[in-house]
C-alpha cells in the first residue's frame, strides 16, 4: 500500500495532478448554477467528443477522391460491419451538436451571462458556432453524393455572385472554377484538420475563460451588474455559496449528457445514416437539391429574395449578424441579467427562432425546387423546332435529356427554378451560354466536364435559335446586366 501511495504521490508531485484538479474540475462554482438550465454547454462538448471519435474512425475508411468517396461510403454502409452505424452516429452527433449548441447560446443570452466580465467567453462562443457550422457544411460536402454536389454547386454559384471578388472566392472554395478532384481534397483538409484544430483551440480558450471568470450565477431580477462592484460580489458568492464543480454541481450535467448520448445513439439506430444518395452527377436531377437542415433557412431566404436585394443581403447580412453577435457583450455590458426583467431579449429570441423556423419550413417545402419530370414530359413548342438544322434538333433533345427543362420552362411549361429560355438568345451570346453551362452561376449547377464538347455545342446551337423573330440576338456589348 505504501509503495502504491508513494508512486501516486510522486506522480502527483511531478504532474501536479491535484493542483490541476482543484484548478479545473474541482473549482468552486455558485451552488445555484447547478441548474438544469446550465447543462447545454457540457452537452455540446460531449457532442464534439463524439464527433472527434466517430470522425477519426470514419477517416480510416473514407477516401477523399471524387472517384472513391462515394464508393467508400457505400462500403461503410453495406460491407463494413456496423459501418452504417458509425456514419449514423456521426451525422446525428452533428445534428445534435448544432441543436444543443443553439440552446446553449439561447440560455446564455437569456441569462445575461455574456455581460461583464464574460465578454470574451461569449465572443469565443460565437466563433465556435461559426466553426461548427463550417464543420457541418464541409461534412455535408464530404458525403459527395447528389445532394452534396448540388448544395456545393449552389453555394459556389451564390459565392460567385459576390461583386468583384466572387470569382476568386469560388476559386478559394472549390480549388478551381468547378467542382473537381481538388475540391474534395480541400474540403477534406478543412473538415479533418483545419477547422477541428481551430475548434479545439477555441474550446480550450472558452473553458479557460469559464474557469478564470467563473460561471454565471443564477440571475435574480433586480440584481444589476455593475463593473465596479461585480468582481467583489462574485467572489463573495463563491465564498458563501460556492461548491466544487466536481462532485457537487456536475450531477445534472452528467444526467443530461447521459440522456443526450442515449438520444444520439437511438436516433442513429432508428433513422440511420444520411445518404449517400446517388453518384454526384448534375445531369441526373433526381434529387431536389436541398442543404442539410441547419442551412435550409439561408437557402430559403436566398431563394425568396428578389434579385436586386441579393448582393446586398449576401454581403450585408453576414456582416450585420456577425457584428451584432460579436458586439453584443460590449454594447450590453452591464445591468439586469434575469430574463424576467429583459422583455426585449426574450422577444429577440422568440422572433429569431420563429423566423428561422418558418424559413426552414419553407426551405423544406419549397415550391421552387425543380420539376422532376419535365425533361421527359414537357414537349418543346413545335415552332421552336421548325426550320432548324439536325444539330439544333439534337441540341433540343439533349436539353431535354440533360434535364435542363426541370429548371427551365419553354413555352410556359417546365421547371421554374431558372429563367424561361424562350428568348434566351436575346440575352446571351453563344459564348455566354457555354460559360453558363460549364460554370453554372446563380442557382444553376456547373456542368463542367459532365457534358461533352459536342453536347454543349448542340445545346448552345439550339438555344441560339431561341428568340422571337422580331428581337435581335444578344451582342456582347449590349447586355451589360448579364454575368457580372
Amino acid at each position, binding site marked *: 500500500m505504501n509503495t502504491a501511495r508513494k508512486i501516486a504521490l510522486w506522480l502527483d508531485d511531478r504532474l501536479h495532478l491535484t493542483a490541476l484538479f482543484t484548478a479545473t474540475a474541482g473549482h468552486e462554482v455558485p451552488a445555484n448554477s447547478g441548474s438544469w438550465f446550465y447543462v447545454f454547454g457540457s452537452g455540446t462538448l460531449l457532442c464534439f467528443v463524439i464527433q472527434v471519435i466517430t470522425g477519426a474512425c470514419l477517416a480510416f475508411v473514407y477516401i477523399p477522391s471524387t472517384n472513391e468517396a462515394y464508393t467508400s461510403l457505400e462500403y461503410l454502409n453495406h460491407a463494413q460491419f456496423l459501418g452504417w452505424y458509425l456514419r449514423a452516429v456521426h451525422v446525428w452527433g452533428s445534428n445534435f451538436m448544432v441543436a444543443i449548441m443553439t440552446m446553449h447560446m439561447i440560455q446564455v443570452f437569456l441569462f445575461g451571462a455574456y455581460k461583464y466580465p464574460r465578454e470574451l467567453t461569449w465572443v469565443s462562443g460565437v466563433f465556435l458556432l461559426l466553426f461548427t457550422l463550417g464543420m457541418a457544411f464541409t461534412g455535408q460536402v464530404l458525403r459527395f453524393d447528389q445532394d452534396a454536389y448540388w448544395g456545393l454547386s449552389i453555394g459556389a454559384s451564390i459565392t460567385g455572385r459576390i461583386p468583384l471578388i466572387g470569382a476568386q472566392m469560388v476559386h478559394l472554395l472549390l480549388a478551381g472554377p468547378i467542382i473537381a478532384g481538388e475540391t474534395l481534397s480541400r474540403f477534406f483538409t478543412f473538415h479533418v484538420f483545419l477547422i477541428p484544430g481551430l475548434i479545439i483551440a477555441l474550446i480550450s480558450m472558452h473553458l479557460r475563460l469559464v474557469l478564470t471568470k467563473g460561471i454565471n450565477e443564477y440571475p435574480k431580477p433586480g440584481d444589476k451588474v455593475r463593473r465596479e462592484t461585480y468582481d467583489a460580489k462574485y467572489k463573495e458568492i463563491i465564498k458563501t455559496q460556492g461548491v466544487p464543480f466536481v462532485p457537487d454541481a456536475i450531477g445534472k450535467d452528467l444526467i443530461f449528457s447521459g440522456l443526450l448520448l442515449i438520444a444520439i445513439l437511438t436516433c442513429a439506430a432508428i433513422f440511420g445514416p444520411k445518404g449517400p444518395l446517388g453518384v454526384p452527377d448534375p445531369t441526373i436531377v433526381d434529387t431536389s437539391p436541398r442543404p442539410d437542415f441547419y442551412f435550409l433557412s439561408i437557402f430559403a431566404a436566398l431563394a425568396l429574395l428578389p434579385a436586386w436585394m441579393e448582393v446586398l443581403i449576401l454581403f450585408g447580412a453576414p456582416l450585420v449578424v456577425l457584428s451584432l453577435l460579436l458586439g453584443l457583450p460590449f454594447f450590453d455590458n452591464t445591468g439586469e441579467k434575469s430574463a424576467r426583467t429583459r422583455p426585449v431579449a426574450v422577444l429577440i429570441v422568440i422572433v429569431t427562432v420563429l423566423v428561422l423556423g418558418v424559413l426552414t419550413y419553407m426551405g423544406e417545402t419549397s415550391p421552387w425546387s425543380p420539376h422532376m419530370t*419535365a425533361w421527359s414530359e414537357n414537349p418543346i413548342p413545335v415552332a421552336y423546332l421548325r426550320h432548324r438544322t439536325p444539330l439544333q434538333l439534337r441540341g433540343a433533345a439533349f436539353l431535354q435529356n440533360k434535364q435542363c427543362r426541370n429548371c427551365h420552362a419553354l413555352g410556359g411549361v417546365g421547371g421554374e427554378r431558372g429563367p424561361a429560355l424562350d428568348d434566351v438568345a436575346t440575352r446571351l451570346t453563344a459564348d455566354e451560354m457555354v460559360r453558363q453551362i460549364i460554370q453554372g452561376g446563380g442557382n444553376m449547377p456547373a456542368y463542367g466536364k459532365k457534358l461533352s464538347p459536342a453536347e454543349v*455545342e448542340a445545346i448552345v446551337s439550339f438555344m441560339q435559335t431561341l428568340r422571337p423573330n422580331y428581337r435581335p440576338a444578344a451582342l456582347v456589348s449590349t447586355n451589360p446586366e448579364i454575368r457580372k
Partner: protein
Amino acid sequence: MACLPHPSNESPVKATEFGSLYEQNCAGCHGTDGKNGPARPLHDPVFVAYMPADQIKLVIENGRTGTPMPAFGQAQGGPLNDGQVAALVQGIESWGKPIDGIPSYTAATTGDPHSGARLFAQNCFMCHAKGAAVGPVTDAAYLTLVSDQGIRSSIVTGRPDLGMPDWRHLHVGKALSEQEITDLASYLSSLRPAAANTTTAEHSSPTGNVPVNSADNSAIRHTGKKQ
C-alpha cells in the same frame, strides 16, 4: 435505408396504359402524339413498319448510348417495369401496319462510303448542304451525337413531320435500294470524328472529375422518393 433500390417491378411511374406512359416519358423528345418533337417521330406508319417490335423494346429498355435517348428499363436504372415497357411497345405498334418492301431495320451488307458520298451529293445535298434549307447532317458535332442505327432509320423513314421524305422518294425519281441506304449510312458514319466515336463515356478527365458512365448518363432515375 433511405437508399434501398426500388423493389423490382414497383415503378415510380404510376401510369400503366399507353397514353399516359407516352405522355410522361416520351412526349418531351418524340413530341406530343408522337410527332413534332426534337427526336424522330414515333407516330409514323413507315417507322412502325420498319422497326421490329423487339428492337423497340430493347431501345426503350437500354436507351442508346451517346445519343439523347435514355434507358427506361429498371435493369438500367430507369423507371419503367416490364409491363410498362410492353404497354409502350404495343402502343407504338398500334400506330402503324406492315408495309410491303420496306427496307430492313439492320443493314444486311457492309456499306460503301464512296458510293454513299456520290448518292449523298445527288439526293441529299439540296436540303442538307451547308446553308441549304435544312442544314448539314455531315457536321462533326451532329454525327458525334447520333448513332449509326439512327442515321439508317432517318434515311429509311425520313422526317415526315418536318418535311424529309422517306426512302421511296429520296432517290430522285425512284426509291433508294437496300444497298444504297446502307452506302449512304456508311458514308455519314465515316465522317464522324474518330475520337468521338458516339460515346460520351470518355469525358471523365485526368483531373479526377467524377467519371460519367455512359449507361448511367443515359439512364434516368425517376424520383418517386423525396428525402
